C-alpha cells in the first residue's frame, strides 16, 4: 500500500542520472504518462495547483511553501540512512515521535531531554552541543538550529499554539548527528511555519526562527501527528557533507496544512487540532509579533458573514444574468454597479473588504462558490434542532407574503419592465409594494439584522424579459404550504431532527412540483436558507465559523489593560461565570455525545452491516447481514416474550385481586350467617359451621394455589427478563461473529501484506526497467555516434570522442547487465510472493465459506 504512494509526476521533464539513481534507491516511482491529475506530488515547477517536490535549490523558501512546495531534496545528500527513513515517512504521510525502531538503529547513542520551561533552554542546548563537539560535528550549526527551533516553539507556546514540555531526542553515530524536538500544539497551520521563514528582523525574532533552523541543517523533516496535536522537527547532520558551494539543505513538510487548503477542503479540519483559546497562563512578553492564531483571529480563517455572502453572490449572479453580463469577468465595477439595488443595504455594512473580494471571486470561480456553499451548509448542519420547525413554518409565512406580491406584480407586466429597466431604488420599492404596499412590512418581517434578498431576487427575475417561470415556483410551492406546516408541526412534536424535518419537507415539496424538479429544489433551498439564516442570526452569526463547529470552546477574554486593576475582581467573577457557562455548554455537548452513543449502541446490530465496508466482499457481507437480522429477530422475540409474560403477570394480579375481593365478600356473608346461627344457638346448626369451615378451607386452598401460580409466573417473567438483560444467547452469537470477523480480517491482513510485497516488487521491477531503457537509449546513441565517427575522417578530437564513448559504452553495458540480473532476481521473488499470496487467498475464501455456513 505504502509503495503506491511513493510516486512523483514528472511530466515530460528529463531527469538527471544522479536523480534517477536516487529515486530508484529510495523506491520512488517517477511517472511521466498522463496529465498527472491523480498524483499527490508533482515535480516542482510543473503545476502550481498541486503539491510539489523540488530536486534543486529554491530561490525563496517562503514562496516555495506558499505555492504548495512540500519538499526540497538535494539528490547528492539524501543518501543517509536516517534521511531515507524520513523520506519514506514523507511519502507515506506518517510520522513518529518514537525514534526507537526506525531511527535509533542507525545511531550509536541516543538521549532524551525534557524541557518544561521555555525560558530555560540554554543548559539543555549545551548538553547536546557538548556531544557534538566531542564527536566533531558542526556544533555551531547544531547550536544555531536548536536555538531557532526552540525559539519557534517558545513563540508558539506564547501564542497558545504550543505547549510544554518539549521532548528532545538526540543521538549520534560516527557519521550522523540526529535531533528530534516535539511539542503539543493546537490551531497550528502551515501558515504559522511560513510566518517564521521570513528575512531576519532583530525586532521580530519569530519571523526568521525557522529560516535560521533550515539554514543550519543538512536534512530536516517537519510534520504533525495525532490529528495535528503534536508538532515534530527532525534534523540530520552528516559528517561527509563538506560545506561545498553547491550544497543546499533538504526539507520535508508533511501533515501540515495552510488555512487556504483547509478552506478549500474542509475535511482537512480533522487533521488539525482545533481548540479555542482557553488558557490563561502567566505570560512573558516576547519581542515582536508572535505567531498568529488563525482560529482565534476574527475573520481570517473563518467567515462570519458566510450566509450573507452567499445571499449576495446569489443576488449578483441573477443581476448580471439579467443584464446579459453573466459571461464577462465579474469585476469590482460590476459589484459597485449592482450592489446598490440590493434590498438590505444595512446588512452591507457588515461586509469587510475581504468579504467583497470573496464575493467577486465566487462569481468568477465555481470552485470558490461551491466551497462557500459548503461552509454555509456546515453552519446549517450545526443549528440547534429546537426551533427549526418553528422557523420553517415562519419562513413559509414569509414566503406566502412574497407569493402574494408575485401574483400582484405578475399581473402588472408593465411595472416589472420598468423595474428592470432601472436600478434605482425607488422603482424597486414601487414594484414590491405593487402587490400590497408593504416595503416596511418586509423589513419588519425579516428583522433588521437578517438580510434577505428574496425580494430583490424575484423582482429582478420577474422583470427579466418576461421570464415568469422563475416566479411561478414560489406560487406553486405555496400550495404545499398548508401540508408542510402541518407535517412539520407533527414531526416537531415527535422530536424529529433538523435533517428529518428537511427530508420530509423536501419530499412534500417534490410531490407538489411533480416533474418540475428545478422548481422544487429552488423552493426548498429558499425555504431552508430562510429558516437557517434566521437561526444563525439569532445564534449570533459570529459563533458559526467552520472552526467553531469542530470543537466547543472556552473563551475567556482578558480584561483591558487600563481597567485591569480596578475591575480585576469583577472580571475574575465574570470570567468564572463565563467559564461555568462554557463548562455547562461543554457538558451539554458531552451529554449529547453520550446520547448519540446510546443510540449507536441501540443500533449495534444494524451497524454490523457497516463492518463489511472495509474490504469484505458481497457474499460475506450478506452473511453478516443475515446473522444480524437473525440476532435482531432473537432480540425482538425475547422482547415479545417479556411483554407477554408481563401481560400474564398483570392478568394474574387482577385475578388475584378479584379473588381476594370475592373471598372477603364470601367471608363476610358467611360470618354474617355465622352470627345469625350464633344468635340462635338452639337451632344448633353444627353442620353449617362445619360447612363454613369447609368452605373456608376450600377458599384458602384456592388462594394458596393462586399464590403459587402467581409466583410461577413471576419466576418465568423474571427468567425471560434475565435472558433479555444478559442476552446470553445474543452475546454468544455476537462473540462468535466477532471471532470469525477477527479470523477473516487476520487472513485479509496477511493477504494484503503479501500483495503489498508483490506490488512493491513489481514496482521495483518497473523502476529497473525504466533504468535499462534510459541506459540502452544512451547506449544506442553512443553506438551510433561511434559508428558515425568511424565513417568519416579520423581526427584526434573524434578519436578521443570515440574512445570516450566506448568507455561509456562499456560502463553502460555493465550497468545494464547488473540491472537485468537484478530484474531476474526480482522476478523470481515476485513469483514466489504471488504464490504465497494465492495460498493465502484460498485460505481466506475457505474462512469466508465457513462463516457463510455459520451465518446460514
Amino acid at each position, binding site marked *: 500500500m505504502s509503495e503506491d504512494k511513493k510516486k512523483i509526476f514528472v511530466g515530460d521533464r528529463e531527469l538527471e542520472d544522479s536523480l534517477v539513481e536516487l529515486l530508484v534507491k529510495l523506491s520512488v516511482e517517477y511517472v511521466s504518462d498522463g496529465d498527472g491529475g491523480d498524483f499527490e506530488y508533482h515535480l516542482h515547477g510543473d503545476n502550481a495547483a498541486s503539491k510539489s517536490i523540488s530536486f534543486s535549490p529554491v530561490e525563496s523558501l517562503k514562496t516555495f511553501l506558499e505555492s504548495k512546495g512540500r519538499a526540497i531534496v538535494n539528490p547528492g545528500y539524501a543518501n543517509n540512512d536516517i534521511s531515507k527513513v524520513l523520506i519514506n515517512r514523507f511519502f507515506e504521510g506518517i510520522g513518529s515521535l518514537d525514534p526507537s525502531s526506525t531511527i*535509533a538503529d542507525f545511531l550509536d*547513542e541516543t*538521549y*532524551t531531554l*525534557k524541557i518544561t520551561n521555555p525560558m530555560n533552554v540554554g543548559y*539543555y542546548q549545551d548538553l547536546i552541543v557538548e556531544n557534538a563537539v566531542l564527536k566533531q560535528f558542526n556544533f555551531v550549526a547544531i547550536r544555531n538550529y536548536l536555538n531557532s527551533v526552540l525559539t519557534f516553539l517558545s513563540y508558539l507556546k506564547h501564542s497558545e499554539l504550543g505547549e510544554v*514540555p518539549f521532548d528532545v531526542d538526540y543521538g549520534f553515530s560516527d557519521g550522523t548527528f540526529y535531533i528530534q524536538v516535539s511539542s503539543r500544539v493546537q490551531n497550528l497551520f502551515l501558515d504559522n511555519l511560513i510566518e517564521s521563514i521570513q528575512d531576519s528582523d532583530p525586532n521580530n525574532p519569530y519571523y526568521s526562527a525557522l529560516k535560521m533552523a533550515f539554514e543550519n541543517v543538512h536534512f530536516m523533516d517537519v510534520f504533525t501527528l*495525532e490529528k495535528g496535536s503534536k508538532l515534530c522537527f527532525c534534523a540530520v547532520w552528516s559528517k561527509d557533507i563538506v560545506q561545498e558551494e553547491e550544497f543546499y539543505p533538504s526539507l520535508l513538510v508533511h501533515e501540515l496544512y495552510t488555512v487556504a487548503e483547509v478552506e478549500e477542503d474542509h475535511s482537512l479540519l480533522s487533521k488539525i487540532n482545533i481548540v479555542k483559546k482557553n488558557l490563561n497562563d502567566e505570560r512573558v512578553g516576547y519581542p515582536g509579533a508572535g505567531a498568529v492564531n488563525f482560529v482565534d483571529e476574527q475573520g481570517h480563517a473563518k467567515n462570519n458573514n458566510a450566509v450573507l455572502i452567499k445571499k449576495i453572490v446569489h443576488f449578483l449572479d441573477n443581476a448580471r444574468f439579467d443584464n446579459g453580463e453573466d459571461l464577462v469577468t465579474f469585476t469590482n465595477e460590476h459589484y459597485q454597479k449592482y450592489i446598490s439595488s440590493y434590498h438590505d443595504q444595512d446588512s452591507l455594512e457588515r461586509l469587510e473588504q475581504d468579504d467583497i473580494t470573496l464575493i467577486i471571486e465566487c462569481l468568477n470561480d465555481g470552485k470558490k462558490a461551491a466551497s462557500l456553499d459548503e461552509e454555509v451548509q456546515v453552519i446549517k448542519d450545526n443549528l440547534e434542532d429546537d426551533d427549526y420547525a418553528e422557523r420553517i413554518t415562519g419562513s413559509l409565512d414569509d414566503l406566502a407574503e412574497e407569493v402574494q406580491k408575485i401574483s400582484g406584480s405578475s399581473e402588472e407586466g408593465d411595472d416589472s419592465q420598468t423595474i428592470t429597466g432601472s436600478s434605482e431604488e425607488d422603482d424597486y420599492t414601487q414594484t414590491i409594494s405593487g402587490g400590497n404596499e408593504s416595503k416596511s412590512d418586509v423589513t419588519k418581517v425579516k428583522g433588521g439584522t437578517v438580510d434577505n434578498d428574496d425580494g430583490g431576487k424575484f423582482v429582478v427575475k420577474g422583470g427579466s424579459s418576461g421570464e415568469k417561470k422563475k416566479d411561478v415556483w414560489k406560487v406553486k410551492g405555496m400550495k404545499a404550504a398548508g401540508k408542510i406546516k402541518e407535517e412539520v408541526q407533527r414531526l416537531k412534536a415527535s422530536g424529529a431532527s433538523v435533517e428529518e424535518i428537511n427530508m420530509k419537507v423536501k419530499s412534500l415539496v417534490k410531490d407538489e412540483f411533480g416533474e418540475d424538479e428545478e422548481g422544487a429544489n429552488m423552493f426548498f433551498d429558499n425555504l431552508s436558507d430562510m429558516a437557517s439564516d434566521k437561526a444563525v442570526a439569532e445564534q449570533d452569526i459570529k459563533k458559526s465559523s467552520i472552526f467553531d463547529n469542530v470543537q466547543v470552546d472556552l473563551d475567556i477574554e482578558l480584561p483591558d489593560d487600563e481597567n485591569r486593576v480596578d475591575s480585576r475582581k469583577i472580571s475574575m467573577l465574570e470570567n468564572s461565570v463565563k467559564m461555568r457557562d462554557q463548562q455547562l455548554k461543554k457538558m451539554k455537548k*458531552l451529554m449529547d455525545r453520550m446520547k448519540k452513543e446510546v443510540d449507536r*449502541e441501540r443500533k449495534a446490530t444494524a451497524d454490523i452491516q457497516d463492518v463489511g465496508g472495509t474490504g469484505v466482499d458481497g457474499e460475506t457481507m450478506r452473511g453478516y447481514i443475515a446473522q444480524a437480522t437473525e440476532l435482531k429477530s432473537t432480540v425482538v422475540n425475547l422482547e415479545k416474550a417479556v411483554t407477554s409474560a408481563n401481560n400474564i403477570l398483570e392478568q394474574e394480579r387482577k385475578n388475584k385481586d378479584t379473588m381476594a375481593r370475592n373471598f372477603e365478600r364470601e367471608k363476610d356473608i358467611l360470618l354474617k350467617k355465622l352470627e345469625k346461627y350464633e344468635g340462635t344457638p338452639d337451632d344448633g346448626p353444627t353442620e353449617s359451621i362445619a360447612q363454613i369451615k369447609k368452605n373456608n378451607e376450600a377458599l384458602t386452598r384456592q388462594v394458596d394455589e393462586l399464590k403459587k401460580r402467581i409466583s410461577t409466573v413471576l419466576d418465568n417473567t423474571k427468567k425471560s427478563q434475565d435472558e433479555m438483560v444478559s442476552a446470553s444467547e445474543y452475546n454468544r452469537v455476537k462473540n462468535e461473529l466477532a471471532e470469525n470477523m477477527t479470523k477473516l480480517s487476520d487472513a485479509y491482513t496477511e493477504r494484503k501484506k503479501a500483495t503489498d510485497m508483490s506490488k512493491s516488487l513489481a514496482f521495483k521491477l518497473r523502476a529497473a526497467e525504466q533504468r535499462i531503457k534510459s541506459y540502452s537509449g544512451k547506449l544506442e546513441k553512443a553506438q551510433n555516434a561511434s559508428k558515425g565517427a568511424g565513417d568519416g575522417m579520423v581526427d584526434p578530437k573524434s578519436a578521443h570522442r570515440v574512445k570516450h564513448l566506448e568507455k561509456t559504452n562499456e560502463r553502460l553495458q555493465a550497468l545494464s547487465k547488473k540491472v537485468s540480473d537484478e530484474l531476474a532476481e526480482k522476478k523470481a521473488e515476485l513469483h514466489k510472493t504471488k504464490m504465497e499470496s494465492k495460498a493465502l487467498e484460498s485460505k481466506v475464501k475457505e474462512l469466508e465459506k465457513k462463516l457463510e455456513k455459520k451465518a446460514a
Partner: protein
Amino acid sequence: MMEEKKENSTIQNGNEVSGEEVWSIIFAYKWSPGEFCWIKSNGNRVVLLRPGDYIDHERFEKFRSGNMNLVFKSSVDISYMEAGINIFEELQLAAEIKGDKEEKKNSIRNKYLKWCAPYLWNGDEKVTLLEMISLFTRVFYKLDHSSHLTFSNLPIPLQQRSLSLSSMICSTALIVGHTDFRFLQDLFHLGLFFDYSLADESYSYLFEDVLEKERIEPGAGEKALDEQRMHHKTNVLKFHPEQSALKAEELLEGVIYNKNLFKIIELHHETLEGKGFPKSLNVNDLNDLEKIIVACSKTMPQKVDLLKDNKEEKLIYKYLIEGLENEILFSRIKSQIVSSFNSIGDDEDYVEVVGL
C-alpha cells in the same frame, strides 16, 4: 516543617513515640504515616487514625488544647522520609533562584534518584505505597479549600488509589527528567482527579471491580458491566475520562499552573495499542509524559492496600518494569527509567536519560 524534621529523625518503622513529638508528626503530615492512639485516663487505647487516614488538622488542634495523651506507631521510616522531603524543598527553591537553575534542578534530580533507588529501584530497603503517599502529599498537596473538600469527600478507596497513582506519576516524571517543581505539583494534583466523575453514586465495590478488569485488559470493563447487569453504567465508564477532565478543570482552575495539563486526565484509559478509550490513541500519538500517565494508570491496581505492600521492595521497578514486562510499546519509557537509575552519579552530576 524544618524543625519538626530534626525531632523526628530517630523514628523508625514500627517505633512508638509519645508526647510532644506525636503532635509535631500530626501537624507535619496530611495523610497519616502510621497509627495514632489516644490513651484514656483508665489506660484504654482508642485508635484515632490508621495508616493512610487523612489527618484533619483542625480537629487535632482542639484535641491538643484538651491536653490529650497520644501515642504514634510509625508505619514508615520517618527519618528517611524527611530526607526525601528535603530534596523536594530544594527543588522548590531551585525554581525560584536566578541563574543556572536547570543545572541545579538536574543535580537535585540526581539526588532524588540516589535517595529513592534503595526503596524504589534496587530493593535494598522495603517500601510501602503509604510511604510514597506520605512523602508526596507532604511535598505537593496544596489544594485550595473547595477542591480539598471535594477530594477528601471522595470514597476512601478511590482517594487512596488516586494518591498512590499521583505519587507514582510524579516520581516517574522526575526520574525521567521533568524537574520543574510546579509542573510536578500540577501532575500530582491532576492525578488525584482522574476518576473524579465516578465519585458520585457510581463508585461502588462492583464498579471498582469493573475498573480493575478494565485496567488489566482494556475493553474488559464493559464486558464486566454486562455480566453484572450494570449495562446502564457503560456510558458512565466510557465517558468518565472526559467528564472528569471537565469537572476537574472547573474545580482546579485556581490550583493548576500549567492549564494545558488538564488534558492528561482525558487519556488515563488510553493504551499504546490503540485499545483504550475515549480516543483510542496509539503509541505514535502519545508523547513521553502521556506515556507515563498511561503506564502508571495501567499498573496501579484499582484497589490499593497501602500497607500490604510492606514486604514488597523496589516499587517503581515492580510496577513499571516488571508490571510492563511484556509491553514492548512501553520500551521507550522503560529504557528511560532504567537508564536514569543506571547513570546515577555524584551529587552535582547530570543524569543522562538514554533513549532507544
